[in-house]
């Protein structure tokens, strides 16, 4: 129930404690599971390669596609490498790419969107045209195209996706910043003689930051999907480097032979990570909207 008469004026006035603050995030059970998963994956991305019990690169064709053995709980891949070690080592490449996409994309989008919302006029119109134009390129297509031009690997797709995601982030930030600028406090600050750059960076940007964080979390999930697809298609991370998307691909042959462990474990990690970030992103957005 929103914006009508008397009865929505319900606010809580207790002094918030730490417990209240955490509860106040109102993430719900699924939201908290997502938080836990995000923490786990972050640890994996940082320490994964060090946690790997075996060398993820050591091949032993005699053990190719072998089932789990003592010390090798997930078994062996098609070249006889330890799947668990490769999953752990693959966390870093799999998660670092999306992180860079989001950081790069969010930074560019925020800069354009906030300045556009503030300046209005021709600058706003041009930024809008750029966003509209970029929207016509699905992220995956732009990433594939970048590989066609610049060659296989993660660098080109990461930059391409950052550009492709700009409008998704930029439009939300722009409309958020616009509704901020249309509020009286911004007019008041102008009338108070506060310099434009201070209004933008001390008031506008902090007030849209929650939006940026929520949207970045969601986009991280999308970037993970698109980048892993690039690797799955053989256009991104190359063998023998461990990467989840690539492992789903290399494991596909095993699936047909009844050895789904490689595809399955890497695929599960991807799915869990993407779900966790998406759910968390949605919960955060919902919370922002609820305010």
């Amino acid at each position: 129930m929103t914006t009508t008469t008397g009865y929505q004026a319900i606010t809580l006035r207790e002094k918030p404690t730490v417990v209240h603050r955490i509860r106040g995030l109102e993430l719900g059970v699924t939201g908290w599971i997502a938080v836990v998963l995000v923490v786990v994956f972050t640890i994996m991305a940082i320490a994964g390669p060090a946690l790997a019990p075996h060398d993820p690169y050591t091949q032993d064709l005699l053990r190719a596609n072998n089932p789990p053995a003592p010390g090798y709980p997930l078994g062996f891949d098609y070249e006889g490498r330890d799947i668990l070690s490769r999953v752990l080592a693959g966390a870093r490449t799999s998660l670092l790419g999306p992180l860079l996409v989001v950081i790069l994309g969010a930074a560019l989008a925020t800069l354009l969107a906030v300045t556009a919302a503030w300046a209005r006029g021709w600058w706003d119109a041009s930024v809008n045209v750029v966003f509209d134009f970029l929207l016509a390129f699905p992220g995956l297509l732009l990433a594939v195209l970048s590989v066609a031009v610049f060659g296989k690997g993660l660098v080109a797709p990461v930059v391409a996706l950052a550009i492709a995601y700009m409008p998704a982030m930029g439009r939300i930030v722009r409309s958020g910043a616009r509704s901020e600028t249309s509020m009286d406090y911004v007019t008041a600050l102008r009338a108070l003689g506060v310099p434009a750059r201070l209004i933008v960076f001390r008031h506008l940007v902090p007030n849209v930051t929650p939006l940026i964080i929520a949207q970045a979390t969601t986009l991280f999930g999308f970037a993970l999907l698109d980048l892993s697809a690039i690797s799955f298609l053989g256009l991104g991370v190359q063998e023998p480097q461990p990467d989840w998307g690539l492992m789903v691909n290399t494991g596909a042959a095993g699936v047909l032979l009844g050895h789904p462990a490689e595809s399955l474990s890497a695929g599960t990690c991807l799915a869990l990570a993407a779900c966790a970030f998406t759910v968390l992103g949605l919960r955060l957005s919902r919370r922002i909207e609820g305010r």
Partner: protein
Amino acid sequence: MPEQTPPSAVVVDGLERVFGDTRAVADVSFSVVRGAALGIVGESGSGKTTVARMLMGLLRPTSGSIQLAGVDRSAPPRTEGERRERAREIQMVFQDPYGSLDRRQTASAALTEVLRLHANLSRQQRDERVRELGDLVGLDKRRLDSLPRALSGGERQRVAIARALATGAPTIILDEAVAALDVSIQAQVLNVLRQIREATGVTYLLISHDLAVVRYLVDDVVVMKAGAIVERGTAAQVLASPEHAYTQQLRDSVPRPNWRPARRTREGAA
């Protein structure tokens, strides 16, 4: 010796503003003596807020002139320096107490930000000044250290008033500043506004559709309709015995004891 006329705080002459095909403000002239209070009365679409925005330098007049404390301020400020200068001459309190404060900033932080910009004070002096301003509008230390969300509508309006005073501006525009408040809260804020005027000699420009509020707070009024001034005079005289039919109609429309609503039209005027 001839009696000296007190200096004018605001002089507006032949002010006009056109948006596209519509004249939002047409040939508006008035002046306010320093320390006096002028009410600008009108309904939505009367152009009263457009006048305020031009006075604040947020909007460029199509034609006409604005003088603040004897200096020509017809054009909006162009540089940050000019903007600050204008800020020290005139300030504004907005209608919506929920939108006129940055929700991430405590009341004292909002006041400090303004003081840092407009007054050359040491940290200690600044804190002292924040407390003084708080006292003036009736906000204690606990309230000053609160975020807007912990304050009621009336308390937020007090913060906005204190913030306007913080630049040292001798003239303050009150744009429907009490319209959104509950009756009991409205009275508190109205009294604060009167006390401030007595204590500081500040000049008010009160923009309001509420005749009783206007009557309570100002000396003189102008009545605006469709961008133009239709009647002017002292508040007591204009509001008690209006001469223009529109002012009369406005007055007749205010509910009060033994009031009978009058039906104006048979056909729907858009």
